[in-house]
């Protein structure tokens, strides 16, 4: 393709644009100010005729396309042209739909539209045509780490979809925790009785499947590479290491049972007749449907007490603060082991809050029918009296301290994830935090250490500079964007599934593992085409940096939420484009602004905000710049327009890939250009983050917290730059925020830099 830029601008007059706006003026702007070689108006640009008109120009050499019509989120199928760089001025949702159709408003509405045309023309000058990443790999094999329910399900599902799988299991058999169970909680109608685990059938299916290679007694001792081109060392117990190449990895490393030895007050370790749920499964398997005998003297159990939430949902040190989710159903199932063998056995479940997710409510009802007794109470102690155990508890219904005797006590302990090394305990998320940590002499080690056993063995042994394992979020579980995109981890091409990412039972793990297998397949297919994985799935652009200007500050390598950037031996960033999600956080972080994408860079946004026609101080027309995250904030603004919400005509909105990509130069450029306010709108951050790129909005927030000082040195009020957390549902709130900003400007006055 020719490198020569040929710009074509199209102005749509459909959807009322022609009636509300002076399109002739817009055409003149695109021609004179925007310097577009071709400018055409069309009555109905997105219809076949309009699209054909554009395509004809492209065929004749136009390669920079400006669509001045609806939002970039609308009509994406119509305006889908290959081998061009395209930008879109949002005249419909962003202008005529968000402004009142009155004679008074006509002037400001036209100014808005004119500015958006100017901005689009300015942006396109700095855009080039994204081409596929030349570094991409196209290995389509899948590695599944962990041979429990989750791992086996992922392997089976991927193989059914036609992908080759290597299934690596640390122990000598497949099946994991589920293989240790006597029976499982039912997963089908009528949810009344425990059912067989189904593990032998799964193992048989895997054995018979030619696409699945099983490696037992093996662990992963090294993982390097990127989606489509991972290289993995698989080491056998004997020490023999094989190197395999795979396209994507599913980590299904599961959980370890919480160590009940931390619960001596509940009698564990003091009496052999106090067992955890795993211990009871062993007893049940030994009994195999007959009477369950207690460990101390082999007497048939006539009464059993189950203590729920043992060592979990607790604020005590060394206990788990979270709910493991499956234990209520599991205790119900185990109580049925006794009741089904002999209905005269007294089985009592002592709970504080019984939670039976899924179809567990039917299972719970079935247990009640079998006369399992449920008692709402808080257990304080289990003591031995004679050859019986005494469970002391506070009955929360009858509000009294009481006690009951039992032959056997079962503790419902929780799941501790096998998520490997907590890399963030050592590595802070931003360079600024390194400084802050040094000042406060506080490391980032979580003060809420609540995992019973510390997992120090790495699962994947990644060679990434960011650490050996996937970052954790809370309680040691792998961070996996649990709100919006459950299986996505912060290492592209590596997906977590099962209890390693949150506590779950067999039914949930199977569903989870199926989803993870599909995400891994998506990643493989996208990377083989040189495209980005979720959430900019299909994006061809990738970060490009000018090494000669790099100061080796390491901000990009530290702040990349996805560990995509390693370091070369001489200290320069080493981009692994295939691991990149194209959020642009590195671009926002770079103090010397040398990181860019073909169609998104410091210049494309900088040019837009400078292209706005800035009225002078005495015009009483302030200008507000909104840098809106394209994932949630921008769609919400569009929807506000669709719903006829009105907002100030003095605002100019620029979509950004993520607030993480906002470079502070844009803020100072905006201030110097005379904007009275800059508003950043991104996703919620923190532990319940909604940022599609996990850390982007949080990093932006940290960066903006520093900008106040800069503003003050310029003699500007810090209120001029604000950072809002918004959600996609905030269609009422965002127009309000914009209107509030107009009021703030009235209070603090116009930006004195206008006109300079």
């Amino acid at each position, binding site marked *: 393709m020719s490198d020569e830029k040929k710009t074509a601008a199209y102005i749509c007059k459909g959807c009322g644009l022609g009636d509300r706006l002076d399109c002739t003026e817009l055409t003149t702007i695109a021609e004179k100010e925007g310097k577009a070689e071709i400018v055409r108006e069309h009555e109905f640009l997105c219809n076949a005729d309009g699209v054909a008109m554009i395509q004809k120009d492209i065929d004749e050499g136009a390669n920079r396309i400006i669509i001045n019509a609806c939002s970039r989120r609308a009509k994406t199928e119509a305006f889908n042209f290959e081998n061009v760089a395209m930008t879109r001025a949002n005249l419909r949702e962003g202008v005529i739909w968000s402004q009142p159709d009155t004679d008074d408003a006509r002037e400001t509405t036209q100014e808005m539209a004119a500015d958006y045309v100017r901005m689009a023309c300015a942006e396109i000058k700095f855009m080039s045509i994204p081409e596929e990443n030349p570094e991409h790999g196209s290995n389509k094999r899948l590695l599944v780490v962990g041979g429990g329910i989750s791992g086996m399900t992922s392997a089976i599902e991927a193989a059914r979809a036609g992908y080759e799988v290597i299934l690596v299991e640390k122990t000598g058999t497949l099946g994991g925790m589920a293989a240790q169970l006597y029976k499982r909680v039912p997963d089908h109608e009528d949810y009344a009785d425990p059912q067989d685990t189904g593990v032998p059938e799964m193992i048989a299916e895997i054995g018979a499947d030619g696409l699945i290679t099983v490696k037992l007694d093996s662990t992963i001792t090294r993982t390097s590479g990127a989606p489509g081109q991972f290289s993995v060392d698989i080491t056998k117990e004997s020490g023999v290491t094989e190197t395999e190449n795979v396209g994507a990895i599913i980590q299904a490393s599961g959980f370890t049972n919480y160590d009940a030895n931390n619960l001596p007050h509940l009698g564990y370790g003091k009496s052999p007749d106090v067992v955890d749920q795993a211990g009871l499964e062993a007893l049940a398997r030994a009994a195999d449907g007959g009477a369950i005998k207690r460990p101390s003297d082999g007497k048939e159990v006539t009464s059993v007490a189950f203590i729920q939430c043992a060592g979990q949902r607790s604020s005590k040190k060394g206990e788990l603060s979270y709910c493991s989710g499956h234990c209520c159903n599991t205790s119900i199932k185990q109580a049925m082991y006794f009741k089904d063998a002999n209905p005269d056995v007294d089985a009592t479940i002592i709970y504080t809050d019984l939670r039976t997710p899924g179809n567990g409510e039917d299972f719970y009802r079935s247990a009640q029918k079998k006369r399992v007794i449920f008692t709402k109470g808080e257990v304080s102690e289990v003591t031995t009296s004679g050859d019986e155990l005494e469970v002391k508890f506070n009955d929360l*219904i009858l509000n009294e301290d009481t006690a009951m005797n039992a032959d056997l006590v079962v503790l419902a302990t929780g799941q501790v994830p096998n998520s490997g090394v907590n890399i963030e305990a050592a590595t802070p998320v931003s360079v600024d935090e390194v400084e802050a940590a040094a000042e406060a002499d506080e490391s980032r080690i979580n003060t809420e250490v609540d995992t019973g056993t510390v997992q120090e063995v790495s699962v994947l042994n990644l060679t990434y500079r960011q650490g050996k394992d996937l970052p954790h979020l809370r309680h040691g579980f792998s961070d996996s964007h649990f709100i919006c995109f459950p299986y996505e981890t912060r290492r592209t091409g590596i997906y977590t599934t099962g209890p390693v990412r949150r506590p779950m039972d067999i039914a949930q793990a199977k569903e989870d593992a199926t989803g993870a297998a599909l995400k891994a397949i998506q990643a493989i297919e996208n990377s083989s085409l040189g495209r980005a994985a979720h959430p900019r799935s299909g994006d061809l652009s990738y970060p490009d940096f000018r090494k000669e200007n790099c100061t080796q500050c390491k901000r990009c390598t530290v702040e990349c939420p996805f560990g995509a950037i390693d370091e070369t031996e001489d200290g320069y960033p080493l981009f692994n484009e295939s691991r990149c999600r194209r959020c642009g956080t590195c671009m926002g972080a770079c103090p010397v602004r040398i990181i860019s994408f073909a169609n998104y860079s410091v210049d494309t946004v900088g040019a837009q905000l400078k292209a706005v026609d800035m009225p002078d101080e005495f015009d009483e027309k302030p200008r507000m710049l909104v840098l809106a995250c394209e994932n949630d904030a921008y769609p919400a603004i569009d929807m506000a327009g669709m719903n006829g919400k009105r907002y100030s005509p003095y605002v100019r909105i620029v979509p950004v890939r993520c607030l993480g990509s906002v470079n502070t130069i844009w803020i100072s450029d905006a201030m110097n250009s005379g904007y009275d306010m800059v508003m950043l709108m991104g996703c919620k951050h923190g532990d319940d983050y909604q940022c599609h790129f996990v850390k982007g909005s949080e990093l932006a927030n940290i960066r903006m917290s520093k900008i106040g000082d800069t503003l003050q040195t310029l003699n500007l009020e810090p209120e001029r730059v604000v950072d809002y957390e918004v959600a996609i549902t905030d269609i009422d709130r965002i127009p309000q925020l914009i209107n509030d900003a107009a009021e703030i400007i009235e209070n603090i006055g116009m930006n004195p830099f206008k006109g300079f």
Partner: protein
Amino acid sequence: MRDKNAETMQKYHNDFLREVEANVEEGDWVHMCMQCGVCAGSCPLGDAWEHSPQKIFMMIRAGKREEVLTSDSMWMCTSCYNCIVRCPRELPITHIMHGLANYAHRLGIAPKMNPTRRFAKLFWNNIVKTGRVNELKLSISLYFMDGFTNGVKTSLEMTGMGLGMLKTGRLDAMGLLRSHGIKDKSGLHKALKKAREIEDARKGLS
């Protein structure tokens, strides 16, 4: 079974629950209660009860035999059926309350002076005598339940209503002297006696 007392009952074991299931009308629903408390919150007389139905069910499971059967709580039920309508587990709570009250009464450990229990007894004796209720006799025996002075006082208070009922033919003025019984009174008595025998045999009462 009926000789069991709190001492020999194992707490939170199923002994008393099994007794209730065997002997109390609709008692085999008790194990289905999931302790949500909707019944307790729905009862219009909730404040008047020492133990809500929710607590009664929990006490049964906890093996508190003495406390449950001597309680006057279930006697306070006015059969409004709010709890039955709302119970998510569809327990016939009202019926269970009456069943428990009846069982306690039969065991002879129900609270002696509970007014509901006394009224129930008056009603039963009244209706069994002739097979039909004699309103005048029933009202008067109710008024005089708590002694002569109270009886005179209540009777005077109710004079207006009594006259009104007389006027509309709702009350037989000669009721004190005659009763409109059913034809086969001895047949009814026989039937009731037989029913009692069957029930006693089943529940081990005498």
